[in-house]
């Protein structure tokens, strides 16, 4: 594997890449890179722009650009003259056979130096995102660091180069061959965080199916808007590691999750682990089939949730129910949309429903749970959801 792969030379007229017989004594110059910008804002490809100062003679000059052992998209290579774009012109480009090289025929009205910019798409030089967050001891807020990780497998070394990921800071760093560089691109402090406990059978299943005990994942919820200390740009997909400040100058690792792409104003839930101190047992208490007409039926269903909070803090539990899954569970599976309405015989009523997040297929309630008592006994709370599933056959 060779280093210093991409290079550029200027040679006198008609002297470059011509058959060997015509090449006599020639002087070539190897102008170094003056500036490099690596544009990482496109999710699929990486654009490199490099500037060099090349000496040009009056007339037509051959400017040779060659590379080896690196995956430059040769079709994408462009040359632009920055110092005198009106007069220094690229006449044509020639591609020699079997070589990773090309020759620009560049016409210059006068002899002298010209600053040129060469841009090309390069493979195996890509980016990913990573997040780290440290929550406060009370888990009410956190500090969030966003990192851009640049992975250079392109087999080309770039000296100090500007990098831009499409938003956030413009960074300048060198990056060597096979290096991965982790760069802090943004830092957000005092970001309010909400601890979310979710009981949703269709999404997360049982922790103990025999006992009908639901798996209750705990997540940190961040909102990507300015009111919650974020919202400057969409949060890109990446791994997030969450720590907690233990209040004694140390921190503990709470867990990690993949942060999905989060547009502005959307919520980001980071799943940290299963909350085993919150016990939710879910059973179907009622299933009544009522004929409407002919073979058309309505189903009256009551789902019961027995909930115990063994924590010494009160928490809010999200109770979610998927209506298609519930219909399947009671033995009806027509494949049609579920037509349903809330009944009035449950403790979970329409006024308690989270209207914003309830959809046509999923209903969501928030339930406040008291901490365990002084005797370390948890209070068992029972909630019921009364649903009428209509017009099935």
């Amino acid at each position, binding site marked *: 594997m060779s280093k210093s792969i991409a290079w550029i030379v200027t040679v006198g007229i008609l002297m470059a890449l011509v058959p060997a017989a015509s090449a006599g004594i020639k002087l070539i110059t190897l102008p170094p890179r003056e500036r490099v910008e690596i544009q990482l804002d496109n999710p699929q490809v990486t654009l490199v722009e490099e500037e060099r100062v090349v000496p040009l003679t009056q007339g037509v000059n051959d400017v040779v650009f060659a590379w080896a052992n690196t995956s430059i998209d040769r079709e994408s290579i462009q040359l632009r003259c920055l110092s005198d774009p009106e007069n220094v012109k690229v006449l044509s480009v020639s*591609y020699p056979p079997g070589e990773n090289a090309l020759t620009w025929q560049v016409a210059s009205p006068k002899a002298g130096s010209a600053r040129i910019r060469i841009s090309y798409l390069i493979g195996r030089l890509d980016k990913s995102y990573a997040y780290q967050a440290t929550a406060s001891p009370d888990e009410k807020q956190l500090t969030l660091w966003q990192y851009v990780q640049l992975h250079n497998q392109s087999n080309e070394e770039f000296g100090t180069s500007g990098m831009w990921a499409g938003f956030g800071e413009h960074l300048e760093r060198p990056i060597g061959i096979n290096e991965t560089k982790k760069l802090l691109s943004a830092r957000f402090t005092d970001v309010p965080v909400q601890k979310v406990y979710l009981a949703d059978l269709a999404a997360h299943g049982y922790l103990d199916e025999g006992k009908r005990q639901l798996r209750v994942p705990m997540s940190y919820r961040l909102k990507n808007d300015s009111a919650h200390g974020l919202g400057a740009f969409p949060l890109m997909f990446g791994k997030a590691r969450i720590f907690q400040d233990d209040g004694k100058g140390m921190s503990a690792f709470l867990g990690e999750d993949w942060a999905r792409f989060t547009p*502005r104003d959307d919520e980001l839930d980071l799943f940290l682990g299963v909350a085993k101190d919150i016990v939710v047992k879910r059973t179907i208490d009622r299933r009544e089939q009522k004929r409407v007409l002919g073979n058309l039926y309505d189903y009256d269903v009551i789902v019961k949730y027995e909930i115990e909070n063994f924590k010494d803090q009160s928490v809010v539990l999200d109770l979610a129910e998927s209506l298609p899954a519930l219909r399947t569970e009671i033995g009806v599976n027509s494949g049609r949309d579920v037509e349903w309405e809330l009944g009035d015989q449950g403790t979970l009523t329409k006024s308690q429903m989270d209207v914003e997040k309830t959809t*046509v297929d999923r209903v969501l309630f928030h339930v406040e749970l008291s901490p365990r008592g002084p005797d370390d006994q948890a209070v068992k709370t029972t909630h019921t959801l009364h649903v009428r599933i209509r017009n099935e056959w």
Partner: protein
Amino acid sequence: MTRMMTIVLMSAGFAAVVTASSNIDLSTIPPRDGVQLTIYNSEDLTLVRETRTVTFKKGMNPLQFSWANTLIDPSSVELRFKTNADQLEVLDTTFPHDKPQMLYWNVRSELDGDAQVEVTYFTSGISWAADYVCTSDPQEERMRFEGFVRITNQSGEDYENAQVRMVVGTINLVEKVRELAQRGLIGEEDRLEYERGRRPVSKMVDEVRRDLSMELKAGMAVAESAAAPKEIVKQGLSEYFLFTVEGTETIRNTWSKRMRLFQGLQVPFRIQYRFRPQEYGPQMVRMFLLRNDRESDLGTTPLPDGIVRLYRDNGRDGLSMLVQQCIRYVPIGQEIELNLGVDPEVIHEWVKLASRRDNFWFRRHDVEVYYSPQQGHQVEIRDTVAGWDEHQSWVERIRNYRNKPVNVEIRRQFAGDVLFRSDLAPTLYDYQSPQFASTIEPGQKRDLAYDLTFRQGRNQKQNRVTLEER
């Protein structure tokens, strides 16, 4: 392997005794005076027209033409006299059976002196392709649009100082030139026919050759300019478009050469967000739309198939890569669509708000009779549902985080007998695809709402979408 093509003027009497030729011959090799390449991009086909000066003597003049290690279709090689045509005549053409990639012409001459001859033939292995580089301004209102052509020579022959012409369009060939070049003059089927004397093999691709020869008139000899990019002259030609490179170019075997075809410096474009799953997949995409016409600083030529690389001046003395995509042939006057993909700053969600069913019809269990409670009919316990209407309420929820208003256009396809109700002024793109458009202001979140009624079972009378004002 280059420079394998030769034309040889041999001593008299040689041609008549090709197979039993003497060991001592005198021959001269007249060089090319000029060569013209007409390269087609729809087929692996190039028409080569080369001129040479040959000195004839009175009487019979055998000429040998050979093309070892090239990809020439032997059936296409023709000799024509550009000067003294009334004094020169090709008596016959011989393809020796033991010497592939060679032929002899017997020329009867009443001239004793020089004449200019033209040899034309088809070759494969030379191709050209277009590509485009577009650079938008930071405001995303105008762009620089540059078109390039790239010629690649894999024909086995160097073409020095050639006049180069490129044809845009789809021609019809009955056989591939590369196959003809590789299998020689006679295919097995033709050979059988030839042996039976039923079909002159030399006429094998005559029709195609004649059509193309008609198109080729005298080339434009423009002096080569050293200090400015060569102009490429564009002209219409029947169903095709012809690009002629100013002056001459040397196209070496196995090399490629790229030249600018045209450029538009201030090409206006508009941005539209489109949701068209059949065209762009199940996502709202950002489109740059421009037109290949003179009003848009383009329109000097149709745009051949090619790759477009679209950049944006990022306002920080650099470029951002927006997209690279292939475009198909764009005639003069037609719109050019560049699909930038999903925009993380414009969020689109399709949210179902409600679903319900009504207008039930029941089939009597033992007869083909239908009853509707809505019509006051009595429904019996063993009757079964035979028809119903399914009502759904939907919103297309769009959030615009850009600092400019965005225009969105949504087109969806629904199968069945469907009623589409909305106040979005929808139109029908086709019988099952309603579409509508709206503008979303910066920072705005907007729900574009509509209701759908699917008539199901026996309620379905049609298979099409109808529109109704809500």
